[in-house]
């Protein structure tokens, strides 16, 4: 059985580096996905992620619910992403960004393979909320409803129905796409 998040936090508090490594590996991609879903550049996302992990390091002794460190991290990265959007980072933003309207695709990305085109096209036509939800959910399939709710800034009670609807929307959009020509 996997080590609990609380056990990893408590061991990291005592200086166990292996536990710190496991903590990072458990949540790093989720953190990256949440920050990226705000439409930050790669450089700014890297900064936001780094600041979030450093904050955790200094708060390690203070965290009141070690088992909810995932929620703590998602809250922290969301706040830091919003700060970055409001005040900018290494790159000057070119447009105002409303909280419900995040750029797609993530800055600097594009489909690299033919088989990406189907998902790429489907994601382009999903709602902003579904894009962000599906990305975050896919990054950490065992993320709790709480963590996803915090990442999106919505009530936790809405996650179940929203997840179901977004998945249905994705299936519908995927069904709509013709198979890309391989030629």
């Amino acid at each position, binding site marked *: 059985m996997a080590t609990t998040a609380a056990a990893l936090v408590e061991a990291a508090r005592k200086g166990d580096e292996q536990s710190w490594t496991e903590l990072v590996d458990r949540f790093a*991609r989720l953190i990256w996905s949440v920050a990226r879903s705000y439409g930050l550049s790669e450089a700014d996302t890297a900064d936001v992620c780094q600041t979030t992990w450093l904050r955790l390091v*200094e708060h390690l002794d203070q965290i009141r619910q070690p088992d909810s460190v995932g929620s703590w991290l998602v809250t922290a990265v969301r706040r830091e992403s919003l700060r970055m959007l409001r005040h*900018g980072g290494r790159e000057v933003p070119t447009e105002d960004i409303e909280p419900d309207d995040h750029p797609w695709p993530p800055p600097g990305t594009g489909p690299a393979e033919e088989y990406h085109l189907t*998902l790429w096209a489907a994601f382009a036509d999903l709602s902003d909320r579904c894009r962000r939800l*599906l990305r975050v959910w*896919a990054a950490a*399939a065992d993320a709790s409803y709480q963590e996803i709710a915090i990442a999106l800034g919505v009530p936790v009670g809405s996650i179940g129905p929203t997840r179901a609807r977004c998945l249905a929307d994705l299936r519908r959009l*995927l069904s709509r796409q013709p198979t890309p020509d391989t030629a």
Partner: protein
Amino acid sequence: MTDLAQLPEAELLAAVNAFFEQVDPMPAAVRTAALGSIAWRTVDAELAELIEDSALLSSAGVRGPHGPRLLTFSAPDVSVVVEVAEVGPTRRLVGQLGDPRSAAIEIRFREGTTWVEADDLGRFVVDGVPAGPVSLVCRFPDTDIAPLVTDWVTL
């Protein structure tokens, strides 16, 4: 070719995850930096949390020129206010300790640290701080006063 739309939920999510892993993966350097961040942990210092950030006070959607940003960090016994000005890719910090007292200020940033002295009134200025994660550690001549470490913030 697999019909993605027909995949069961777990497989479809895995396909979405694989898609993002290919198209927008977390760079290895981000993981490495996260692993290394534990080395920055201070022991025996009081944490001064960021309690106010002028960047979050500005009205939504308004984005003027990148003017100074005011950060307030607070610990139970002492606070510090820092005004941040952008100078190209670096930042100029003008700080004021809550209590007028001298201190050695360590400015920690992604690649290293730099030091500056706060004067008897608790004021300090430091130029050339690289943009990115920043945290301050304030150490007082009176060793009865615990050092102060501020929340990391992305400047």
